[in-house]
């Protein structure tokens, strides 16, 4: 002891010199990462070795979840991120590892999910030689990421990783990819912590809204006679505080609230001011309120084509206020009167402060007329359906699932298609971060891995993937992951044997020519569940539905629930392609489904 103190103490930097692979592990720990979703391969073996050694020394501070396909890793990271607000972390190998991850990376880009993806790369001296498992990962992912890096010097690695986390989680969140050649993983360099690195770029997103624009917005809202809040995923991304502020500001103004698919949960479905989701499969009242409003307050949504319907007939008489952290979202699809660039939570707080400072109150007389109109729209009961004693209606399955799970601590994920829209319509979300779905990209196969990510982040909670029998097969292999980590996720399949949304569009748009939308051969989902080691439940009798749903949610193990539903049910209401918000098909409309969409609409997606 004495002897060692008399020697020159090793310098700080010498003590912190480590291999590139160890730098990755240390940087992850310093970034507060506790879970990584990944799949090993030749070009990331040094990082996997560093993870092994770290867990021997430091226990389970960095949990690695071994998926069965790299797409599963990215969706699981999305589910983890969306249910926690923290970035999802993915580790995959070069070549096919990277290309398999791309779907989930684009999904995260479209839905603004913070994600950091580490890909292995062939050693620097082999780059460009068509080496084994070489792919131009940064080239391929340039358009798929918010930013990406190829690290050619281990000395850059600490800065690049800390920068990547900063970029992924700030501003409009998104995926950032770091491609690390194998020789850089072996090379030794000095580690620097998050506070020691100097960022090398000019990236500095603006979060505070312009006070002049905020004053203009308040003046518009105060004079509004028919206001509506149109909110989106930006409110969720701005953190739980933003949802609180939205609720407070909506209450002050007395305005109704609708939300995009991505924004469900920011405003409680139980609140009387809630109109339900808007857009193509939104409610009659939400879409009509959007069409007829005089002031629209868009918070953290982006006027997507699924929301606006026919653009030239979109909310023709309204003044529009758009709050978005991404300046390029403002005036992209729809011209607005007041554009406020900033974080949804921060701008909502400033709006509340300006509203109070101006002594404004809700215009009760005008609002009473507006609410009477909304109640008339509500009276159309646009989400109604005809129940049956012999066959389970898909809407009924979601309603019962909601009724039997609403008092539990529940997280819902979905795949993509009719079941997704029915879930959005009939499952009533009261809190943010409880709903995970692939909105922008519309990725079939998203739901089960996302459920795995959410379950890992919330081990004691009930996590349900509402699925279709077609979508679930796109990432079915991840059931094996759920078994390995004892994750009691519930896969609730609305099985109608059809790619239901494709079938619905073929009925509406293509003369009922059902080209390749029927699954002639489906697996026995109960046996499939059992083969993986999960519990399988089948239900086709409406009378047994409740008991079997309870059996599913009370099971401590992963469950695959094969819910046989009406095969030809259409997802309604619907704004047909090329139509406006006030031209919806309603379940009681009695229209000839084949004739409601004209030639121009047929050409749209």
């Amino acid at each position: 002891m004495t002897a060692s103190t008399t020697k020159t103490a090793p310098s700080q930097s010498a003590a912190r010199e480590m291999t590139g692979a160890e730098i990755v592990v240390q940087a992850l720990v310093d970034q507060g990462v506790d879970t990584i979703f990944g799949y090993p391969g030749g070009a990331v073996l040094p990082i996997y070795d560093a993870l092994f050694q770290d867990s021997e020394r430091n226990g389970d501070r960095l949990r690695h979840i071994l998926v069965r396909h790299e797409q599963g890793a990215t969706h699981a990271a999305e589910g983890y991120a969306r249910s926690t607000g923290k970035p999802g972390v993915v580790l995959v190998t070069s070549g096919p590892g990277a290309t398999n991850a791309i779907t989930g990376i684009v999904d995260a880009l479209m839905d603004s999910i913070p994600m950091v993806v580490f890909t292995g790369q062939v050693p620097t001296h082999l780059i460009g030689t068509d080496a084994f498992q070489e792919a131009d990962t940064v080239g391929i992912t340039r358009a798929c990421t918010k930013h990406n890096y190829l690290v050619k010097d281990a000395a850059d690695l600490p800065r690049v990783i800390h920068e990547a986390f900063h970029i992924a989680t700030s501003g409009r969140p998104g995926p950032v990819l770091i491609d690390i050649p194998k020789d850089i993983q072996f090379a030794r360099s000095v580690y620097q912590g998050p506070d020691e690195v100097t960022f090398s770029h000019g990236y500095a997103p603006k979060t505070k809204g312009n006070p002049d624009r905020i004053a203009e917005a308040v003046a518009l809202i105060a004079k509004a006679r028919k206001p509506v809040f149109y909110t989106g995923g930006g409110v969720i991304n701005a953190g739980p505080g933003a949802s609180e502020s939205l609720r407070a500001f909506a209450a002050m103004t007395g305005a109704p609230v609708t939300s995009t698919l991505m924004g469900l949960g920011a405003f409680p479905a139980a609140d009387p001011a809630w109109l339900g989701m808007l857009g193509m499969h939104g409610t009659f009242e939400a879409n009509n309120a959007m069409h007829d409003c005089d002031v629209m307050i868009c918070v953290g949504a982006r006027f997507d084509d699924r929301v606006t319907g026919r653009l030239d007939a979109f909310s023709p008489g309204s003044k529009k206020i758009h709050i978005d952290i991404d300046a390029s979202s403002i005036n992209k699809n729809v011209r607005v009167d007041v554009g406020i660039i900033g974080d949804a939570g921060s701008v909502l707080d400033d709006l509340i402060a300006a509203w109070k400072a101006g002594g404004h109150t809700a215009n009760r007389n005008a609002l009473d007329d507006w609410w009477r109109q909304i109640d008339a729209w509500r009276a159309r009961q646009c989400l109604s359906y005809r129940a049956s004693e012999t066959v389970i209606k898909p809407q009924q399955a979601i309603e019962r699932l909601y009724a039997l799970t609403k008092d539990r601590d529940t997280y819902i994920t979905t795949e993509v298609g009719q079941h997704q829209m029915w879930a959005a319509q009939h499952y009533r979300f009261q809190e943010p971060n409880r709903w995970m779905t692939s909105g922008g990209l519309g990725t079939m196969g998203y739901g089960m891995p996302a459920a795995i990510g959410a379950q890992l982040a919330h081990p004691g909670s009930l996590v349900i993937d509402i699925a279709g029998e077609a979508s679930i097969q796109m990432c079915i292999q991840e059931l094996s992951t759920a078994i390995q980590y004892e994750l009691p996720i519930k896969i609730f399949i609305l099985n109608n044997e059809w790619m239901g949304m494709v079938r619905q569009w073929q009925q509406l748009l293509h003369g009922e020519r059902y080209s390749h939308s029927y699954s002639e051969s489906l697996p026995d989902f109960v046996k499939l569940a059992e083969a993986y080691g999960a519990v399988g439940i089948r239900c086709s009798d409406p009378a047994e539905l409740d008991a079997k749903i309870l059996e599913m949610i009370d099971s401590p193990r992963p469950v695959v629930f094969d819910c046989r539903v009406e095969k030809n049910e259409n997802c309604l209401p619907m704004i047909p392609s090329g139509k406006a918000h006030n031209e919806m098909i309603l379940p009681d409309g009695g229209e000839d489904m084949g004739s409601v969409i004209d030639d121009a609409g047929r050409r749209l997606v």
Partner: protein
Amino acid sequence: MTDPQPASAYDLSHAGEVENLATFALLVDNESGVLHRVVGLFAARGYNIESLTVAETDRNAHTSRITIVTRGAPHVLEQIEAQLKKVVSVRRVHDVTRDPRGIERELALVKVRGAGTDRVEALRVADIFRAKVVDTTSESFVFEITGAPAKIDSFVDLMRPLGLVELTRTGVLSIERGPEGM
């Protein structure tokens, strides 16, 4: 039913809107792939590139300057600027066209082949435009001309009937008048 409006939910072409040329000057991090990020953005979103120049301008700061001339309706140009500003490697975006202090210059090399009066006329026009002769043979000239793009267009138009053989242009460079840098 007469319906003059476009029926498409995706109809963002805004037919009938006047398209303008615009020049954007970009200060970018000089790192591998940065040009691809910028050009890829234009390709992915369907924007036009009329001309593009790029070179490192500050070795110590590792920055390059990219000058892009594009064409679009006003709202498209606004969107291009906003999209460019989102690219992490792009430090500054300046709309030179909308800046009254913006100066734009381009260099062109113009090869003209001819004899007799055409040859004399070509030299005379070159003199008026202050173009330099950088190569001469008994039957051809190569002229070097710098100026705003419109000046080069006029020069080329005048040379065409006089025996224009080949034209190369650098694309537009820009800088602001006055003492301040970008």
